[in-house]
């Protein structure tokens, strides 16, 4: 009896691996990238790369569990939605007003601690931001937005 239960569980887990995962593709194209196209201070560029780019760019560093169902579904969904909301690899496609809007939103979300998401920080402790970093990030976003309309 016990053996049957185990076999069923294993079959389900193995079977799950056969379900296709719609994991967003990466790209090396930096022609519209925010860091490649702007004078961004090093500390801010580091924050962007370490704490934002996994979901908000086309340069996601997929961890090993991103290839293992059912976690892979969750990772794929978060990356897909993150890129849809804001993609730093496609930053230069935005006009000035769309940039200003995004900068206002990221300043607020980072300062309020809404981003990066808790679930991401569990497995990416390096991405955690200190209060000082959050403040620096918000101030940078504000001054960048302001410079767009000078």
């Amino acid at each position, binding site marked *: 009896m016990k053996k049957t239960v185990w076999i069923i569980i294993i079959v389900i887990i193995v079977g799950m691996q056969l379900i296709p995962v719609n994991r967003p593709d990466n790209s090396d194209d930096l022609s519209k990238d925010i860091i490649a196209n702007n004078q961004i201070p090093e500390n801010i560029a580091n924050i962007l790369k370490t704490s934002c780019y996994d979901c908000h760019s086309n340069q996601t560093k997929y961890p090993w569990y991103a290839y293992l169902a059912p976690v892979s579904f969750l990772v794929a969904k978060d990356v897909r939605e993150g890129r849809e909301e804001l993609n730093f690899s496609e930053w230069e496609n935005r006009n000035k007003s769309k940039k200003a809007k995004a900068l206002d939103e990221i300043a*607020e979300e980072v300062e309020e601690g809404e981003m990066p998401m808790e679930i991401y920080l569990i497995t990416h402790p390096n991405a955690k931001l200190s209060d000082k970093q959050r403040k620096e990030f918000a101030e940078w976003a504000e001054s960048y937005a302001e410079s767009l309309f000078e």
Partner: protein
Amino acid sequence: MKKLVLFSIIAFGGLVFMNFSRVENQTINPQNNKYEVPENVQAIIDRSCFGCHNSDSKNEKGKKKLSWDLMKKGYKTHKIIAKLGEIEEVLQKNEMPPEKFLAKYPDKKLSDDERNIMIKWAQEMTKKMSE
């Protein structure tokens, strides 16, 4: 001579009137005088938005997200433009006014027409101010 005096009075009166109606029809932002709120938009804001979204609001979150009084005086140009984009988005997604609030104050609900007036205004103003 009499004619001249009469003419002056009419001209003066006309100037005063022009000035007066100008003040009535548009709101002038000292930082960016392109920002204008027509009366029909202002009426929607006053009825359905301003209660939470003003700088004296007790609703801390609403106040921080957007204070309509600061759109006229206080926000810098980039901030006004950012907020216009956010206004457009929340209205397009039908997220504002919030459901919970509308359950209590159903008369503050925006009709489709009113939402479209607001969205169109936000889009036009964004374009105008970004030029």
